[in-house]
């Protein structure tokens, strides 16, 4: 018995082939083609922006990222450009931080309510409302932010300034708090709620029932269950959702353009009414731009493209890693 086993030659694995029908082949081709379109379009946009913007990056150098000025000067010898998006990058970061700090806790609370507390009927209704928020035109958020939110938020900003101005970020060079990154961030916070909420809601709902029951059987309160079981399980999903929200906050254009006082000045003071973000700057300058300025705007777009790509890749990385180690 054993000798036959030893002497038997080990076969190489056979190739597994099938001969699909023509209709199947065609369908497969069509689906593959359309499936790759997304990748293709994204690549083409990236290529377009880099090719058109590369000249600016060449002439302006690394300073394009750090300079706070955007000057086009006409002289006898021609036009000179001194352009940088430093102020806009700074503004983008500030607005996004405000949006995340305010929006993510709100979204988590909303997701917890929808998953664990809301009665079935209210739940369906609220979920559709939250989804509707995602589809809402952002200019409407901007207008609402300008006319309704701003008067209140200015008051809040003054309060924060009054009591916390010793923190550098909450200080201001002048007593001017309208159209600030703070207020733009608040508007963005509301705009990222739908995406963060829906991702958080989905991961919370997937918490294994046996762990929830284990906690309850140990005499836990509902809050205890959420803290001990739901959060550890859902944290990676929430981080992923927050990163998606961040992606949106980076790229949001119209709402920020409506609310924010776009100024090419390095402003670290989140309450002070001066700032900007890359996307809204492009809109602001687009109409009047000619020649090299247009190219510079495309270069700014390329930077924005890279930033968004980086954030989303980071989100994927975090989610995948925590999923691997966590459970």
């Amino acid at each position, binding site marked *: 018995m054993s000798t036959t086993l030893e002497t038997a030659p080990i076969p190489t694995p056979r190739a597994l082939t099938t001969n699909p029908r023509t209709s199947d082949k065609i369908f497969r081709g069509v689906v593959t083609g359309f499936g790759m379109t997304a990748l293709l379009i994204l690549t083409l946009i990236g290529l377009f922006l880099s090719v058109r913007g590369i000249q600016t990056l060449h002439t302006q150098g690394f300073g394009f990222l750090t300079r706070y000025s955007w000057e086009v000067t006409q002289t006898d010898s021609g036009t000179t450009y001194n352009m940088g998006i430093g102020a806009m990058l700074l503004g983008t970061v500030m607005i996004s931080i405000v949006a995340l700090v305010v929006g993510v806790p709100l979204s988590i609370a909303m997701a917890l309510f929808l998953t664990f507390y809301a009665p079935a009927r209210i739940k369906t209704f609220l979920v559709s409302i939250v989804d509707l928020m995602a589809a809402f035109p952002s200019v409407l958020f901007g207008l609402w932010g300008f006319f309704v939110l701003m008067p209140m938020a200015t008051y809040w900003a003054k309060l924060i300034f009054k009591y916390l101005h010793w923190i550098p970020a909450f200080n201001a060079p002048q007593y001017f708090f309208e159209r600030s990154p703070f207020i733009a961030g608040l508007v963005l916070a509301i705009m990222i709620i739908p995406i963060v909420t829906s991702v958080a809601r989905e991961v919370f709902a997937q918490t*294994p029932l*046996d*762990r929830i*029951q*284990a*906690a*309850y*059987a*140990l*005499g*836990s*309160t509902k809050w*205890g*269950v959420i803290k*001990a*079981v739901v959060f*550890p*399980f859902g944290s990676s999903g929430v981080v992923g959702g927050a990163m998606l929200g961040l992606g949106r906050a980076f790229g949001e254009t119209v709402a920020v353009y409506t609310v924010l006082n776009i100024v090419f000045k390095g402003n670290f003071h989140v309450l002070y009414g001066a700032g900007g973000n890359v996307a809204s700057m492009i809109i602001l300058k687009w109409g009047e731009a000619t020649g090299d300025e247009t190219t510079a705007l495309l270069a700014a777009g390329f930077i924005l493209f890279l930033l968004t790509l980086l954030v989303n890749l980071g989100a994927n990385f975090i989610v995948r890693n925590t999923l691997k180690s*966590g*459970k």
Partner: protein
Amino acid sequence: MTTENSSNENSAENQEGAEMTTETASSSLANISQAHNLGKRAPGTHVMGSGLEARGVHAWFGKHHALSNVSLDFSAGTVTALIGPSGCGKSTFIRTLNRMHEFIPSAAMAGEVLLDGKDVYAAGTDVTKIRLQIGMVFQKPNPFPSMTIGENVLSGLKLAQLKVDNKDDLLEECLVRAGLWKEVKDRLGAHAGGLSGGQQQRLCIARSLAVKPKVLLMDEPCSALDPGSTLRIEDTINELASSMTIIIVTHNMQQAARVSDYTAFFLSEGGPGQMIEVAPTNEIFSRPRDKRTENYVSGRFG
């Protein structure tokens, strides 16, 4: 009942109880091959734990009447096994005892469950306190995977916001009683997911012991385990039986015979599940009163 004077007695008696258990456990190990190893704990000889009494318990899932009129008395310090074919309402029944039943949407119940004479369903009852006193071990081991072994054992304290003087002592005590200490004492900081299924289940037992329950419900605790782990857990049950009241659902009749003082037979004949018969375990297996019980324990159906 002669057993009620115990819960506020001091720890000296506790120790006595513990020593006694070691003896009973080792003798039961010797007899483990005999399926009908009975009378280890005659009622009244053990004085720990609390009495639990179900009176006329019904349970529904929506309109489906799952359990009808079960009245059962669990004396303090005894082990009661609930046996019966699948779908007869055993698990539903024990989930009504610690109010886990109501987590299923549309679940309803009727009747009373008395813990030390007090209805756990009485208006104004703090359900979390009930579940602290009536612990539960589930069919599938369910340790918290994000916590270490040590954190798992002590998780109940954190969840119920209980304070304890010496956590390390409690940790060791619970793991020893659950029969897991020797295997994990060098890796209490490791994640619980790395343990085998049987170890995880004993960890879950240790976890439920940490909050000092008076009653422990076990819902088919060995059904997902190999025979070796099953025996370990049965040893643990025997060891725990002196200090608390245990109610165990099992599909394994040999297991019922090995660990329990009393056995209740549940059956659903098309309609809602009912309790057919309850008696000391040796009687259920040697001379059941009901024909249906006899058919079941002799393996004619189920």
